[in-house]
C-alpha cells in the first residue's frame, strides 16, 4: 500500500471522523495528521524536518482560510517545497467554478465529493503509487 501518511485539512470534526474511518478501513496502519484550521495546517507544512506526506485531503469551505487560500499561501510561502505534494480536494461544493479553480493548481490531482468512498481511497492510493514510481 502506497498510502502511509495523510494530512487532513477540514474544519468539521465529524467529517474528519468519517475520513479517518474510511482510511483505516482500507489500511489500519495509515498515519493521519489532521487540522481544523488551514492556517494551522500551513504552519505544520512549514515545520523544518517534518515527516513526508503522501497526500493532503483538503476541504474548500473553512473558517478564516479556505482551501484555495491555503493552496495559494502554500505555493507562495513554500514554493518548490510544496510543488511535489499531492493534494486531493474533498468538498460538498457543487459549484463547477471550484473544480475549475482547483484544476489550476498542479498539486491538485483529484476532486471528490463528500463523503469519501472506499473507491476514492483506492484512486488516491493509485495516484500516490504513480507519483512514487
Amino acid at each position, binding site marked *: 500500500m502506497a498510502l502511509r501518511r495523510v494530512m487532513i485539512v477540514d*474544519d*468539521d*470534526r*465529524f467529517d474528519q*471522523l468519517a475520513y479517518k474511518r474510511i482510511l483505516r478501513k482500507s489500511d489500519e496502519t495509515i498515519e493521519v495528521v489532521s487540522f*481544523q*484550521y488551514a492556517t494551522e495546517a500551513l504552519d505544520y507544512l512549514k515545520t523544518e524536518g517534518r515527516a513526508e506526506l503522501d497526500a493532503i485531503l483538503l476541504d474548500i*469551505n473553512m*473558517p*478564516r482560510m479556505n482551501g484555495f487560500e491555503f493552496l495559494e499561501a502554500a505555493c507562495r510561502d513554500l514554493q518548490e517545497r510544496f510543488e511535489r505534494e499531492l493534494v486531493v480536494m474533498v468538498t460538498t461544493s457543487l459549484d463547477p467554478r471550484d473544480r475549475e479553480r482547483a484544476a489550476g493548481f498542479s498539486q491538485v490531482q483529484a476532486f471528490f465529493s463528500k463523503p469519501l468512498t472506499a473507491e476514492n481511497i483506492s484512486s488516491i492510493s493509485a495516484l500516490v503509487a504513480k507519483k512514487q514510481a
Partner: protein
Amino acid sequence: MTVLRADTEAPEPALVAATYKAALQAYVVTGNEEDLSSAYDCARLALRAGVSIGEVGELHFRAAQHLRSAPLARAQVTARIEEFFLETISVYDMALHGYGESVARLTAEVQERKRVEEELRDVTFELAQQRDLLDQQVKDRTAQLRSRLEELRMVNSQLQQTNQEQAQFSYAISHDLKSPVNTLMMMLDLLEADHREVLDAEGRELLDAARATTRRMAHMVQDVLRYARLVGQEAEVEMVGLTPLCQTVLADLRAETQKAGAEIRIDPLPVVRGVASQLHSLFLNLLSNAVKFRHPTRPCRIEVKAVPPVGCVAEIHVCDNGIGIDPAYQQRIFSLFQRLHTYEEYSGSGIGLTLCQRIAGYHHGDIRVSSTPGEGACFIIRLWVEES
C-alpha cells in the same frame, strides 16, 4: 361764376375750361382779392377733373387770349392774368408737391410695411419652424426617456421577480427542510435515550456526532429561513424608538446573558425611521454575537450607545470586551456563510452579520467593525446615510 360743390363727381373738362375762363375774366375786370381766390376753386376743380398741369397751361392760354383782345389797359391786364395763373398753378404745385411727397412717403411706408410684413412672416416662419423642431426634439426625447424608463421598469421588475423568486425558493427549501430535520433530531434523541447502552464507544461517538450535526442543520435552516423572509418581505417603515427596541432584545436574550454573566448597558438611543422587525433582528444578532464571543476569563461587558451622527441620521455603536476580530478577517465576517471558528468552538451559520449588513442597507446605512484582537470589538451602525 359757377361753383361746383359736388365733390363726388368728376367735372367735365369743358366745364373746367368755362369756369376758369369766367373766373379769370372776373378777376381781370375787378382786380378784387375775392375774385383772385376763385383761382383756387378753379384749380381744385381742374384737379378733380383730372386736368394735367400742361392742360391747365393750355386752358389758361386760351382764356387769356380771349381777354387780351378786350379794351383794357394792357399792362394791368397782363399782370392780373399772370397773377391769376400763378394762383392756379400754386394749387397745382402744392398738390403735386404734396402728392409727390405722399407718394414717396407712401411708397416708403408701403415698402416698410412690406418689409416688416415680410420680416414678420420670416420670423413667424422661423418661430414655427423652431417650435416644430422643439416639438420634435421634445417628442424624441420624451420617447427616448419613455423607452429608457420602460427598459428600467422591465429590468427592475425582472430583478424584483428574480429576487422574489429566489427568496421564495430559499424560503420553500428551508421550510421544507425544517420538518425532516426535526424528525431526524427526534429519532436520534430516541436512539440516544433508549439504545445508548448497547452501543460501543465508537457507536456512541457517532451518535453524538449525528446529534450535534443535526442540531447545527436545524439552526442553519432556521437562519436561512429568517434571511429569506427578510429578503422577500414588503416591510412597513415607521418611527422606531431604539431604546425600547433594545430592551425587548435584551429580554429575548435573557437566558444567554444570564448564563454568560454578561452586563449590558443600553444608553439613551434615538428614535429613527425604520422597519421595527428588521432593526430588532439587527440588534439581536449583534448583542447575541457580543455575548457569544466573550473573553474566556474577563467578565463580559457590552455597551450600546448613540454617537453624534455625521452625514447620517443615526450612528449606534455596539461595543464589547470580548475576543475581538483579527484585522485580516474584519471584512470577511460580513460575507454570507463566512465563519472564523470551527463549530465546536463557536456555533453559528455564518448568516447573522450578512443579515445585519442587509438590514443596515435597507435603512440606507452601513455597518463596519473596529476591533483590537484580544481586547474587544465595536460594531458601528449608521442609518439613513446622506447621499454625497
